[in-house]
């Protein structure tokens, strides 16, 4: 995976993005920068607007105001598929895989998106998908990164929870994005599995600009280069993890509570 950007280049910028649902402001003028080679963690209590923020960046929800720039392009108002093709990948908190396909087919189909011929092209209707070499290579790489090579034949719906979370990431990686938005990748994982996932995220870091939404505070402080705290849709602190941790407002609002 070659990347024209050098380390710590700004790949994604969300500039004062806001989302209102009728009278409710779910996300209020939030700005986030994602740089290559860095993990930017976003934390906050349930209902803080973290999922909404992610959905705004991926194009799943339209912005009420503000702009998002990806790789220098203003992607505000783009459809999710267009944003994905422009270099963004996203994994889900609630596992969002193709349950009735095998692990390999999940990753292969994900990789295929980057080589997909136009649907109205009849020649593409006669091609054999399993013989697409570049797709297979991409899928194989993603599978290996996620550590699922030995589980490729398993039915995705029948795999263990940890394996499904790994598959979740593998699918995102198969599209070879530059920006990764990861929504609680450690959700529901045991200690050993969580440790594996943390190692994987560290391996991914040098090549991607990553945003990590997480509740697991140990993982957050082990991984994050930048930390943003959201409460009630607003950013109450943002910056280096050590500084944010020491911030009194943050301690009062969030870190001090049991969760």
């Amino acid at each position, binding site marked *: 995976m070659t990347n024209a950007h050098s380390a710590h280049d700004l790949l994604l910028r969300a500039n004062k993005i806001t989302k209102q649902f009728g009278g409710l402001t779910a996300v209020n003028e939030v700005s986030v920068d994602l740089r290559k080679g860095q993990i930017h963690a976003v934390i906050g209590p349930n209902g803080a607007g973290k999922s909404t923020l992610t959905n705004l960046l991926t194009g799943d929800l339209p912005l009420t105001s503000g702009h998002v720039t990806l790789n220098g392009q203003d992607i505000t108002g783009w459809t*999710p598929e267009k944003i994905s093709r422009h270099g963004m990948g996203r994994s889900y908190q609630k596992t969002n895989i193709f349950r*009735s396909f095998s692990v390999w087919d999940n990753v292969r189909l994900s990789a295929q998106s980057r080589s997909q011929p136009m649907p109205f092209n009849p020649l593409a209707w*006669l091609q054999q998908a399993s013989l697409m070499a570049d797709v297979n290579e991409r899928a194989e790489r993603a599978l290996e990164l996620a550590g699922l090579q030995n589980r490729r034949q398993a039915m995705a719906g029948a795999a263990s929870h940890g394996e499904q979370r790994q598959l979740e990431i593998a699918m995102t990686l198969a*599209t070879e994005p530059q920006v990764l938005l990861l929504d609680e990748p450690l959700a529901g994982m045991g200690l050993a599995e969580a440790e594996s996932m943390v190692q994987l995220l560290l391996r991914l870091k040098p090549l991607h600009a990553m945003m990590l939404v997480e509740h697991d505070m140990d993982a957050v402080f082990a991984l994050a280069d930048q930390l943003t705290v959201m409460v009630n849709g607003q950013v109450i602190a943002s910056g280096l993890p050590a500084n944010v941790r020491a911030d009194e407002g943050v301690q009062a609002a969030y870190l001090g509570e049991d969760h």
Partner: protein
Amino acid sequence: MSDAHAPLETLPRSLKILLGTALLALAAFPFVGTDYYLQMVTRMMILAIFAISLDLLQGVTGLVSLGHAAYFGVAGYALAFLTPPGEPVSLWWTLPAAVGASALLALIIGFLVVRTHGIYFIMVTMAFAQMVFYAFFDNKVLGGSDGLYINFKPEAVLFDLENKKVFYFFTLALMVLVYVFLRRLLWSPFGRALAGIRVNEHRMRALGYGTFNHKLAAFTLAGALAGLAGFLWGAQSGYVNPELMGFHMSAHVIMMVILGGMGNFAGAIVGAFSFEYLLHVFKDLPQVAGFNLGKHWQLWMGLFIVALVVLAPRGILGLFAVMLKDKSDKQGPQP
């Protein structure tokens, strides 16, 4: 779609052998069957093509269209408009023209309906098909409720379609061609994407697939193939009427696909044959104690459908697969 409808994409070997045998039987049939049965089986094969076309949409892509008959009927009418009352017309340009008409209609309607989901999709496909139905039913210019006659079968020059055996083999060849083509398509990148859309469209979009265009292409292709079947129907029966585009026709073809088993095209063929056969059985029921069972065939058909949905949601092939202790389920899908 629920797991109960998860399709048998890969046919177990025993089923393949069974289907191969059936194909041989079909090829041999004209030499042993009477004219009446020849016509019946030809009609079954035409409906099989119709059912296969819907399977692409419903079984593979997961789009439940309650208006697929619109594209079937339009092609039949196209042949009726193109055939002069006194002489036959050439097969070689009317067939593509009729199929093209169906494809165009499917493209236009598809553009409007493919943006809807779930129950909306079901309702709007039905609504637009009814619009087409009423357009023909209400307008004398288009034949009205009486329909139109096609006095001559299309002229093929190389072979004579007026010969029932020749027409039979022509239909059989087309059915096999469509089947082989779609099996190939199923494992193409387009086909894999359609399957992905069926299983999890949201994730497909997040992965970068233009799902609207894929669904629209599937809708158009399905409409075109339904048109192929409709053309053959008009050519064989020599008569088209708005019922060919009606709600009952659309519902029947859904039934055929479900009855046989969705998602592998073979089930659609099995379903078409079975459904037509069942229809004959119900209509031919005798009088019992003064009550004409055959006249009320819709009652038996209705009860059968209710029983089917309650007891056998994966259809005939599904039952077979369970009976033969389906190995391919355990192995997972294979390329």
